[in-house]
Every structure is written in C-alpha cells, then in structure tokens.
C-alpha cells in the first residue's frame, strides 16, 4: 500500500468499516510511515474537535413549551375545522343507535352477523360530517376499547392518513354518545366499521359510505338522520 492508497482508506479506517485484511494493511503502513501517521492523527483530532463543538442550551422551559404549543396548535386547527363547539356538533349530523345491550352472557356472535342490514350514508368530497353512535349499556364499563376502521378515501377529521384509530374510554350505564367527525378525501365507496370491546366481549357495527365526486356545498350542520 502506498501513501495515497493509505490516505484514501483513512476515512474507512477511522469509521471502523474496513475488513480485517484492510485494517491490517493500514496498521502496517501507519506503523512504518511517519507522514501518514501524522495525517491519521490530524484526521482523528479533527473528529474529536467536532465532537467538542458546543451547543447552546435551549430555554429552560423548552420541553414544557414544545408540547404545550403542539397541543395548542392542533386544538386551534380543530376549532377552525369544526367551526363550532361540541354542543353544536351534537345537534347536527348522522345518528346511528346501537340499541343492543353491550353485555353478552355467552361468547358474542361473529361481527358479520350482528346486523341484518347495513345502514348507509353519502358524503361529499372534503365535507366533514358527524356520525353519531349511541351505545346503550346496562352497567358502567371501565376501560372499554373503541376501534374505528375507515375505508380508503375517508378520514377522521384531525387524524389524517390513519385508517384505524383505537383508544380506551369508559361507558356509563345508560346511553353513551360517540361523535365521529368524518371527512371524505377520495371519491368511492366502502364500509366504516366500529368496534367496542370490553374484556372478552365485543360489539361491532358497519356503515356503508358513498363518497360523491362533487365538493361539498352544504354547511356542516346539515342533518341527515336514518
């Protein structure tokens, strides 16, 4: 190995990315060549100096601020999208009542058999519509898991690019209202599915969704009950 070949391999040597044979060749050259040894030391020292470059500390409240600003930003975005608060949302949209009791005494039937007919709704492109589900429960159920599965072209408003969203919540004895703000992004059709599970019990429903090619011209508060 001559000096130029050695210099060319110094980066890989310092990165420890040479194989054993290559490393031994460089070792041998360095032990015999003072000039290349000096080049090696220089390169190594520059890397050490780079690691010493200081970083100015962030503001003392940076951690707290960065998360608070994130939540505030998304809350503002959501408010702009909805245009009104939750109280208004409850009064508008699409209702589906899950009348069956959520408690099963035996293993639940297969989800496909739960509903004899699948209800449907039509939504325009970029229109935000509330799908409201009422769950009736015979008793309080803590830590129920809700899962929403969306067909292609539909999103839950504020949750872009997520076809499945799952979270835990509590069901109280009596009626429980879940509001799903749905927005259409691509024309087409498909089924929206929602699942509620608690321990080994599950309740599901499906809703057939048609997405119009036309952009929405209706205000979001348009009521279209089934």
């Amino acid at each position, binding site marked *: 190995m001559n000096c130029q070949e050695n210099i060319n391999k110094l980066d890989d040597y310092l990165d420890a990315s040479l194989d054993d044979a290559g490393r031994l060749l460089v070792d041998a050259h360095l032990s015999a060549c003072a000039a290349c040894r000096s080049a090696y030391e220089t390169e190594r020292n520059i890397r050490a100096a780079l690691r010493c470059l200081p970083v100015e500390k962030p503001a003392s409240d940076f951690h707290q601020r960065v998360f608070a600003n994130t939540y505030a930003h*998304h809350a503002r975005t959501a408010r702009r999208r909805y245009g009104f608060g939750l109280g208004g949302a409850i009064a508008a949209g699409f209702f589906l009542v899950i009348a069956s009791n959520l408690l099963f005494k035996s293993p639940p039937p297969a989800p496909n058999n739960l509903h004899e007919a699948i209800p449907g709704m039509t939504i325009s492109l970029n229109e935000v519509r509330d799908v409201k589900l009422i769950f009736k429960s015979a008793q309080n159920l803590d830590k129920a898991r809700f899962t929403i599965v969306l067909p292609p072209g539909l999103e839950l408003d504020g949750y872009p690019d997520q076809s499945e969203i799952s979270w835990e919540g509590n069901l109280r004895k009596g009626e429980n*209202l879940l509001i799903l703000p749905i927005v259409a992004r691509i024309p087409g059709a498909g089924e929206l599915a929602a699942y509620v599970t608690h321990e080994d019990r599950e309740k599901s429903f499906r809703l057939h969704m048609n997405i119009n090619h036309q952009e929405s011209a209706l205000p979001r508060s348009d009521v279209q009950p089934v």
Partner: protein
Amino acid sequence: MAKIIGFPDQGSDQRGFEQLLQPHVDHLYRLAYRFAGNKPDAEDLVQDLMIKIYPRRQELNQVENLRPWLVRVMYNLFIDGKRRQNRSPIHLTVDNTTDYEGSDPLDYLESENPGPEYETARHLYNGHMVRTFDQLSNDHRMVLSLHDIEGYTLEEMTAILDCPIGTLKSRLHRARARFRDLLKISLTEPQHD
C-alpha cells in the same frame, strides 16, 4: 341525557405522546442546533417536528427504531424550510456571536479518560471551529453532524437521508475535506510510493 364518549381521550393521548417523545427531545434539539446553527431556529425546528408528528401519534408506537425515524422527519422539515427560505425574497441573518453556555470543551468531550487526543482537541477547539463549521453547506454540516458528531452509522444515515451508502461515503469524505480546507489544515502529502 347521553354521556359523551371522549374521542379519543386527548389527555391520555397527550400523556402517551409525551412519554414516547420526551426521551428524544434533547437529542433532537442538539441535532437541530447542528443543522440550523442557532438556538431560535433549532427550537423552531423541534417544535415544527412535534406539530407535524402529533396527528400520527397512533403510529409512533409501531415505529421500530423511533429516533432515526424522528431525525428523518426533522431532516426533511429542515430541507423543506431551507428551500422555502431560498425562494423567499426576504432573508434574515442570524448573529452567530452567541456566548455558548458551558463553552469549556471539557464539558463536551465524551472520553472518560482524556489522553493526547483530548489535549489536541482542546487545543483545536475555539470560536474559529464553530464559525468554520457554520460555513459548511447544509449537506456537509448534516452528514458531519449525524456521523462524526452524533455517531449515527452509515446504515442508519441511508434511511434518514434516503441516500445510498456509496453516495453518503463520498459526501462525508468531501465534507471532511471541505472542513479541513476551511480550517486550513491539509493531510500530509504522500512521501513515497
């Protein structure tokens, strides 16, 4: 009257998001500082990253190696921001004569047993080093930051920068050569064949 079911539980959502991201904030800020070269821009870059990924928080739990994933998103944000800045007719300049907190290189050396390498590094370190690093192009500053400073492997960097390993090696080589040029350091000329 029906009880309203939270959709989803934002409090629990936020706690989960913070638990997942908190351990990475310092590292992300440090890297953002290396990219941007100053504190306000570094803070903004991390903030933009958080705002961008928060709607995708459900997916974050499934990301196998979160830190390089976050760095990749932050890198893309930084590049996009630079492109926008370059297209803008308004250009801001930043005062780089900041007093660095804890600017003693002792605070930054990683070696627990300082030896000759430490002494040389200490000698090399001064404000000139900082200014020289800031003079590098964005590309060069980023590859040196990721690899030589923060210790990302070339394999990790291929994913972060979306670039083949051969191209990365060349870019690193050129970045180091440029840094040496700016420092007016040259590797010893070959003495013999």
